């Protein structure tokens, strides 16, 4: 019954499976209508004018500190939130929020939530949760999904079929994460939004889930929007990386280029904060200060209060996302800073 509506031709074609165009989303802090009329509070801009596209079989890493709007952007893609401005397109067709999407459209996007355990019904054995996801998509009754299909899905995430009879609380963190992935692939999505799927897991489990994600992608040709604050994990899995700061994209590029020679000072700060496994390496460098209050964004470049390379013009002009070498960068100094003088030796290898 479940049938992939994807052909090899689709993979080659240029239409991205998911595309967001100039989406913005703001949240108002005051709940009541009266309060909203009275107060002069400006709304918190969680996502500002973001455009991104993800192809089939591609992994887009979305990184940034907490509060930068990563999860809001993810919810805009999944339809849990409606953008104030801009549009979300699935295969070139504009879609609305979840309730406005057809079943076929809903099936195309899978989600693995950050706290996977909380996304399962605690009173259901996990087999039932998975069966619900796969049958829901084909609008068949619950009982139509046989135990075979559930077992097959569990096997594809490297779990024993016997686990279907167990309850979410009985599973370890790594297991529940894999079950969540099994549920996400149950309805044959074209793209899976993974919100911090491995944070909170230990290194060995993390490695397992990551290699499983890579396998699943190869097997099913699914695209990933991979959200994480851990750049190591993103470097491992992502083909392209988008760095977000204060609701804006500040750098988008091929993962290899971006990690080897970051163009934006914020990307560089994120990379320098990663602790190295080798005790002989210099300690990680903290980035001081906090991201700006989304309701009260600074003038000019939003990163300027924390930027080590800040100048007068950064405080006055808001930079736009410009193409520098192979990447897109939102920084006033990007063209000069990444000119011929400041390029790593590795640059010559980045022939993408």
């Amino acid at each position, binding site marked *: 019954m479940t049938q992939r509506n994807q052909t090899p031709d689709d993979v080659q074609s240029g239409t991205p499976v998911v595309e967001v165009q100039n989406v913005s989303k703001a949240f108002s802090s005051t709940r009541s209508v009266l309060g909203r009329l009275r107060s002069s509070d400006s709304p918190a801009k969680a996502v500002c004018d973001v455009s991104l596209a993800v192809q089939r079989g591609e992994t887009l890493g979305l990184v940034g500190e907490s509060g930068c709007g990563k999860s809001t952007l993810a919810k805009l893609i999944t339809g849990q939130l409606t953008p104030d401005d801009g549009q979300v397109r699935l295969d070139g067709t504009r879609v609305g929020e979840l309730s406005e999407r057809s079943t076929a459209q809903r099936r195309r996007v899978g989600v693995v939530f950050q706290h996977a355990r909380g996304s399962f019904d605690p009173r259901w054995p996990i087999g039932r949760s998975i069966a619900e996801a796969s049958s829901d998509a084909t609008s068949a009754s619950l009982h139509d999904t046989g135990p075979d299909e559930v077992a097959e899905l569990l096997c594809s995430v490297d779990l024993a079929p016997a686990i279907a009879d167990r309850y979410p609380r009985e599973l370890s963190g790594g297991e529940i994460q894999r079950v969540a992935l099994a549920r996400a692939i149950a309805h044959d999505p074209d793209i899976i939004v993974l919100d911090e799927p491995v944070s909170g897991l230990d290194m060995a489990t993390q490695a397992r889930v990551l*290699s499983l994600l890579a396998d699943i992608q190869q097997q099913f040709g699914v695209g990933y929007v991979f959200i994480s604050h851990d750049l190591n994990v993103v470097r491992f899995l992502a083909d392209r990386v988008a760095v977000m700061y204060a609701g804006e994209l500040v750098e988008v590029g091929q993962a290899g280029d971006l990690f080897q020679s970051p163009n934006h000072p914020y990307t560089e700060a994120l990379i320098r904060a990663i602790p190295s*496994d080798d005790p002989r390496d210099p300690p990680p460098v903290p980035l001081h200060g906090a991201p700006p209050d989304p309701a009260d964004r600074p003038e000019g470049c939003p990163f300027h209060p924390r930027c080590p390379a800040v100048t007068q013009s950064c405080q006055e002009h808001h930079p736009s996302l410009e193409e520098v070498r192979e990447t897109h960068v939102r920084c006033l100094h990007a063209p000069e800073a990444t000119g011929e003088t400041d390029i790593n030796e590795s640059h010559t290898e980045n022939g993408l």
Partner: protein
Amino acid sequence: MSEPLLRVENLQTRFDTDHGTVDAVNGVSFTVDRGEIVGILGESGSGKSVTARSICRLEDPGNIVGGSITFAERELTTATEATLRRLRGNKLSMVFQDPTESLNPVFSVGEQIAESVRVHESSETQRLLDFLGVSPFRDRSAWENARERAIELLDQVGIPNPEANVSSFPHEFSGGLRQRAVLAIALASEPALLVADEPTTALDTTTQADILSRLRSLRDEQNIGILLISHDIGVIAQTCDRVVVLYDGQVMEAGPVERILTAPERPYTRALLSCSVRNSDADKQVQSAMARPRDPSSSHEGCPFADRCQYVTETCRSGPIPTTEAASDHRLACVEAPFSEAKFVSEQQEIPAANGGQQNDTA
């Protein structure tokens, strides 16, 4: 040599569950001295947190069934609840993974820090008088002083604008600020030992780097001993002086970080290091030989890692594994050890031949 600040000797903590007994900590020994950071590294379920909780005697519902914990020349395994209360949060402070659960949502952060300051500075009788609220005996100025100290502590842990933030509530803080506030509470009593259980796991990398550098400066400037528990090799590598690698409640290898994390001799440590995504770049090949952790309630003899070890021999399964001193300050529990660097390198290159040549070398 003088007695170290904390000495854990052959600690055994057991949980009785419906499915049988679980030896969460099974004969763990290590020491922490003033002015050093000792890391405990292991996967989830390896007994890291139970070890930390046992040290603070918060092991309930588990039971310490053997071994000793000596802290500041006092035996903790047999200490009374009154003694423990005086020690905990005083000379012995703890920071847990989730700051939201450590903070009280209905009190301001400043009050919670001031409380910690007050509890450790005032006498028991004064606290009772304060509690009863008998006005002539109430020491109000002390609260003022404690508030000033709270502001000082907020500043010390890197909370911006401490005068204003002292009256903020936990929900107004971000995760990073909350963990800093918890750290401030832990430091209020000027502890000799700080037990930090995954203090940065829930935080951004940028904030993590800052908290770790603060831990290092606490060690250097205030001569505090720190026990840092983490599953993140990078965190341990960049912060600790010595590291204890735990697996299935047992110490696999212990010694200086430079040695353990750059030239580990225990196959388990090697396997753990190879799991790090940092060590495996573009080729997308992480070790998953580490795959299945064992069922902790099943009893076993011999090395707990035997089933997953690529160098396993008959001796590994036959009996208890002795802990050997590979060098001064470097212990490891492995019958096949010590693996020399050269041997490991050659085996990495020709893995199929690894098992054949092994027994001769170590005889």
